[in-house]
């Protein structure tokens, strides 16, 4: 079958090439004008197509916004994300205004001034005033954006451990999974280095550092709502990137150094799940999955599970073969739920003694 299809495709390509050369010959024989330089007829048609093209672009833009509005991320689940979203909206509106005007002018001029034997172009080589105006406008607009952006950037990246009792968590990346290490009662992470990796000590904690004894290593990230979190990130092997899109947070995880990012979650998993946006989105996704499941069942395979929304962290720096599936679930919950969950997790000391008793 596939061989047959291949032959058909090759034959079709052959035929189309043959036809094309025929068209070529016909077009050459037909008119007296065989210079292959655009004549008035070409200019006329191509100019109109230019106008049609900009309409196509406008329609494509509108189509994308209508069709894909559900693609945009929901409201930010972190505090600084609100500021981020505001800056994004301002920049987007600005961009689309400029895009609308400049593309319109470009293609409209291409249409309006399409060539004609009887027309004369205007010799217009310079105009200092005009050029000054369109240099100074971008300067002012961009200056505004830069200043606004830099204030937000400084706010986000200024990570102060002294301020407001932040929770310190280590994010640990390796091919191809994540671990989170909670700093325990003392809120201080124990020292660690890959050279200590052995047995259950998969994160290479320094067993002689007492700060590390109460650390808890888990593979699901739980965060209490409305409390600032500082992530300290460490990689075991290659570059990874901790990308938490719902929190407008991302930082590369670099072997040999500790990188940091901080945010305050403001919406619990439950709240996000029940938000209007997410309910609609998950319904759409489940509809798609149901359709797919039907086909899978026909093919004798297992149906897909129904999807329920959870925050996630994913790897966003190419890190190897299974890069596409390096994820960790994030749960944002109330302070009490968080504490209950944390109590059930083993400390590093308990892990070590469990290993020893085995």
């Amino acid at each position: 079958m596939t061989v047959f299809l291949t032959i058909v495709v090759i034959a079709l390509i052959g035929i189309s090439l043959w036809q094309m050369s025929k068209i070529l010959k016909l077009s050459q024989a037909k008119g007296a004008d065989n210079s292959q330089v655009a004549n008035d007829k070409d200019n006329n048609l191509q100019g109109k197509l230019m106008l049609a093209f900009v309409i196509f672009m406008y329609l494509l833009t509108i189509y994308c916004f209508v069709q894909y509005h559900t693609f945009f991320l929901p409201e930010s689940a972190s505090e600084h994300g609100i500021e981020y979203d505001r800056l994004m909206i301002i920049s987007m509106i600005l961009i689309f205004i400029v895009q609308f005007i400049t593309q319109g002018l470009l293609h409209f001029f291409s249409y309006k001034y399409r060539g004609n034997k009887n027309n004369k172009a205007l010799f217009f080589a310079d105009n200092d005033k005009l050029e000054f105006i369109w240099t100074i406008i971008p300067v002012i607009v961009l200056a505004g954006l830069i200043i606004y952006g830099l204030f937000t950037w400084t706010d986000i990246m200024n990570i102060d451990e002294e301020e407001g009792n932040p929770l310190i968590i280590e994010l640990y990346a390796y091919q191809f999974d994540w671990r989170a290490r909670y700093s325990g009662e003392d809120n201080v992470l124990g020292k660690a280095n890959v050279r200590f990796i052995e047995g259950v000590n998969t994160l290479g904690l320094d067993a002689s550092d007492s700060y590390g004894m109460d650390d808890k290593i888990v593979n699901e990230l739980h965060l209490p709502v409305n409390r600032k979190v500082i992530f300290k990130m460490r990689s075991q092997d290659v570059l990874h990137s901790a990308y938490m899109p719902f929190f407008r947070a991302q930082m590369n995880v670099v072997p040999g150094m500790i990188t940091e990012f901080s945010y305050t979650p403001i919406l619990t998993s439950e709240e996000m799940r029940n938000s209007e946006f997410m309910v609609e989105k998950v319904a759409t996704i489940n509809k798609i999955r149901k359709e797919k499941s039907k086909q899978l069942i026909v093919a004798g395979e297992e149906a897909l599970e129904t999807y329920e929304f959870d925050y996630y962290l994913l790897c966003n720096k190419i890190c190897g073969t299974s890069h596409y599936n390096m994820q960790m679930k994030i749960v944002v919950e109330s302070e009490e739920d968080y504490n209950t969950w944390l109590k059930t997790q083993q400390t590093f000391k308990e892990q070590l003694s469990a290993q020893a008793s085995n």
Partner: protein
Amino acid sequence: MSAIAHVDGHEEDHDHGHHHKETFITKYIFSQDHKMISKQYLITGLIMGIIGIAMSILFRLQLAWPDHKFTVFEVLLGKFGEDGVMDASMYLALVTIHGTIMVFFVLTAGLSGTFSNLLIPLQIGARDMASGFLNMISYWLFFLSSVIMVLSLFAEAGPASAGWTIYPPLSALPQAIGGSGTGMTLWLVSMAIFIASSLLGSLNYVVTVINLRTKGMSMTRMPLTIWAFFVTAIIGIVSFPVLLSAALLLIMDRGFGTSFYLSDIYIAGEVLHNQGGSPVLFEHLFWFLGHPEVYIVLLPALGITSEIIATNARKPIFGYRAMVASILAIAFLSTIVWGHHMFISGMNPFLGSVFTFTTLLIAIPSAVKAFNYITTLWKGNLQLNPAMLFSIGLVSTFITGGLTGIILGDSTLDINVHDTYFVVAHFHLVMGISALYGLFAGVYHWFPKMYGKMMNKNLGYVHFWVTAIGAYGVFFPMHFIGMAGLPRRYYTNSNFPYFDDLADTNVLITVFALITAAAQLVFLYNFIHSIFYGKKAVQNPWKSNTMEWTTPVEHMHGNWPGAIPHVYRWPYDYSKTREDGEYVIPGQDYVSQIIPLQDGEEEMHH
């Protein structure tokens, strides 16, 4: 390649048999003539382009239909496509080599190599490049590096697959991914040779432009194409050596146990001895080239477009001085913005602020360029030849792609769109598609000069419109899946149910990609067919002012049969009129650069 050159060379034989005797080898293979070398660059670049685009089709198929089995994978990828299922590491390899080939081999060598070689001597009035021999070496080094890059595809454990940016430690450790073994070694060797080739070429361009201009061709009378090639060559000389250093240190880390980029690594069950290196150092070195590289790719395209738009609008380019100034400003700024690729690399956030500032500054000269192009069209008499359509298309994609740069260049906004499909959409439009349009525009426009034939315009129109719609069809929706937070370089997006509703869009993008790729076959057909059977070109088919159109149609060594003509004016005296409203040369709306000022005519103080 030699077969193609052979036929078109036949005419040369009868017309210029009196020239000093050349053998087949010195004429078509180890040629030192800039026109032949430019054709060699073009054809090598196009062949690499076919490979690069074919790869993109393969991985687009995978992204659109991740569950489907494709025989074509089995046929082309061998053991990496067993039973028609693409191997995940092969996906990364395809992405990596696609990027490498398109950026370096097609858009750097294929575009800049072709047109710098063709146009610099012809447009400044020189017999050839300053050193024909170095020029020949430059091409053959490029050819060698292309061969090695293609050979690397056949490495046992797969070709390089750490992304075209080859960030260590992934690219340094074969334990981390198969492609970082022999595949990566060959990649590095190929790129080292490529850099040597690029440097030889660039030095030659700079020396030629500075020293070999004909009498009267002052710097301010140079066509914008030459300005663009000249400045591009300078950026290349400044930044490519840094990539060579980055590659050398990486080679040492890989082969000789040094720790420039590696530290504290535990992989495949053992701790490596490396200590104290930093991958961030590599990122700095890489992007010190990597960012100027974007402009090395783009500036020649903008230069070509400036020339083509002015010629076909039958108007001078608007704001010649501003255009030159913005080329210089872009070139300067391009070397101090590299950090915007690294906002979230772990680099000090204060540095991020500085790079945001410089990055958004570069939007200013870019905006000036776009406005000047639009004003050049205003009240023109536009001759919508295929080259002109591609030039207008370039301005369009340059604006669309450039605007999203305002988002990515802002360190704050970059946080959440970094390394998503938003970035992919942005750079494909602003440098990929734009530069390709520049390449096509150049080929359509200067084909008569290269081969003495005309390309078929109707096929050119078909090529343009399908490509224009297809390119937007591919990359416009891509912004939206990027805004959804979909990371790039994912083998499949089906492992996150959250992305399930993006699947249809991925299919749409792939369909557009297939159509667009098919349209390139029309171009290839037109290109090859026209070389052999195209209509014979006249000396100055586009009624252009620049000097290359004063040379005979048939190529000859030394370009001009007699003395080199002198230059008396700038190249943009289109539709210039006398006080009584008549053209400077009655009945003709252009005045070639080699025509002296007419009675009572004033030179423009541009």
